[in-house]
C-alpha cells in the first residue's frame, strides 16, 4: 500500500487523490481540518503551510492546507463561509505562525487558540493587508509589459 493510500485509509474517505500540476489534492468532504491534521500526524506527514484565498463577493475564504508525505506535496482545500475555522495549532505546532499571519492579514479567526502578540505588526487591527472589501471597486489591472521589460 502506498503512503497516499495509507493516508486515505486513515482519513476514512472514499474520495480519490487527484494529481494536478505536481500537487496531490484530496477533497476533504465532511472531514474537519482537525481530523485531517490528526491523520497527517498518524502517517508522519510534514506540515508545510496554509495558503488563504479570499473568494469573490462575500462568499468567504478558501484555505489550502499543505503537507509533505514522502516527497508528495499534498493539498487539502477547506472553504469557510464566515470568518472562523478551527485551529490545528495544538495538533500541529508548526501551524502556529501561519495561523497567526492569516488571522492578521485576512482577519480569519482560528478558534481554540490565542493570538498575542501579533506576528507582523503592532496593534490589534487585523485584515489590513491582503483582505479585500467586497464593496470596494476592483483593483486596477497591472500595466502591460513595456518594450523595455520585453527586451530584457
Amino acid at each position, binding site marked *: 500500500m502506498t503512503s497516499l493510500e495509507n493516508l486515505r485509509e486513515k482519513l476514512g474517505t472514499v474520495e480519490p487523490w487527484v494529481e494536478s*500540476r*505536481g*500537487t496531490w489534492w484530496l477533497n476533504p468532504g465532511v472531514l474537519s481540518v482537525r481530523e485531517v491534521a490528526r491523520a497527517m500526524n498518524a502517517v*508522519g506527514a*510534514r*506540515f*508545510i*503551510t496554509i*495558503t*488563504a*484565498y479570499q473568494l469573490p463577493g462575500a462568499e468567504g475564504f478558501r484555505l*489550502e492546507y*499543505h503537507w*509533505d508525505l*514522502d*516527497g*508528495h*506535496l499534498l*493539498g487539502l482545500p477547506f472553504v469557510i463561509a464566515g470568518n472562523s475555522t478551527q485551529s490545528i495549532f495544538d495538533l*500541529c*505546532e*508548526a501551524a*502556529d*505562525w*501561519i495561523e497567526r499571519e492569516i488571522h492578521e492579514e485576512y482577519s480569519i479567526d482560528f478558534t481554540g487558540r490565542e493570538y498575542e*502578540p*501579533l*506576528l*507582523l*505588526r503592532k496593534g490589534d487591527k487585523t485584515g489590513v*493587508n*491582503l483582505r479585500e472589501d467586497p464593496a470596494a471597486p476592483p*483593483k486596477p*489591472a*497591472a*500595466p*502591460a*509589459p513595456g518594450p523595455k*521589460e*520585453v527586451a*530584457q
Partner: protein
Amino acid sequence: MSYKIPMGPYHPGLEEPYKLDMICEGETVQDAELHIGFNFRGIEHLAETRNYFQVIALMERVCGICSFIHTLTLCQAMEKLAGLEAPPRAQYIRVVMAELERLHSHVLWAGIAAKLMGFKTMFMTCFALREKVMDVLQAISGNRVNYSMNRVGGVNRDVEDPLALVNMVDDLEREMMRTVIPIFTTSSTARSRCAGIGVLTHEKAISCAVVGPTARASGINQDLRRDAPYAAYAEMKFEVPVEQAGDVRARLFVRALEIIESCRILRQALAGMPSGEIAVGGDKFAFITGTATSRVEAPRGEVMYSVSWKEGSRNPARVHVRTPTYANMPAVRWMVRGARLADTPLIQASIDPCYSCTDR
C-alpha cells in the same frame, strides 16, 4: 529570580531586525519569545499588482542571498499555469545557479558563524572564498546578487563555456577541503563553541516541521532535490548528509558536507550540459485560471510558492510564499532553552536565519 534579556531588534550579533526576549535565571535561558515583522514589506500584496515580468523582478527581492531560488520557484509555478516546460539546457543552468547560490550561502554562513565564535581569521577566510563563488556567479549572470537569470519558460542567459567553470569549482573545492572544512570540523575552538549547544531533538524537529540543514542536523533525512526532483536534479548523483546530534556542531557539519556535494553536482551539471535553446514561449504568455504550487530546496531549506492566476489577466491573483526561515525560526525557542546566554547569538545563527525572507 528570573529576568528578561531582550536580544534585538538591533543587536551586533544579529545585524538584521528580529527580537528574541530571553527569560533567564542567572546565565541560563529558561524560555524565549520571538518577535518578527520589523521590516515587513507586504510583498505578497505587491505581487498582485505586478505583471508577469515585474512579478519575477519583485520576488527576486524577497531574499538577498537566495534570490535565484525565489525566481526559480516562482517561474516553475508560472510555467505550470502557462503550460510551458523549460528546455533541458535551461534546466541544467538552473541547477548550476542553484548550487552556486548554495555555496555562496553556506560559505557566507560559515563566515558569520566563525565571527560569532570569535574566530575572526576564519571569518576573513570564508569571505575571501565567498568572493570566488560570487565571481563565478558574476561571470555567468553579470550580477553579484540579484542575477535576473530566470524567466517563464527558461533562463535569460546562457553559460557560454561550461567547462571553463569547472576549474573554478575545483579551486573552490580545494580551498574548502584545505581550510574551511578541516578547521570547522576538527578545531578545538569550533568544537568548544558548538558541540552540545543549541540542541534541537529529533522529536522536536519533527514537531516544528523544520526544513533544510536544520532538519538534516536533527536526523531528518529530507531533501527535495532527491525526494521531489525539479530542474535537472533527477539526473544528478549526490548524497544527502544527515547528522543525528541536533546541536550547532551538527548543523555546521551538515553544511560543510553539503558544500562538497554541491561541488560534485556542479561538476556533473557543467560537464553534462546539453546543447540547445535556453528558453521557450516567447515574450507573451497566456496563463490559465487556477493555482499552481512549486517547491525548491533552497540553501536554508524548502521554499514553496503558491501562485493563483485568472485567465486573461496580466498579474497574478495571489502569490503565497513559504520561506525556510519561516519554518525554522520558531524552533530557536526550543534550541535556546537551557543554553548559556552567551551562546544564544551563535545558536540563533546556526539555523542561518534570513529575516528578509521572513519579513517578505
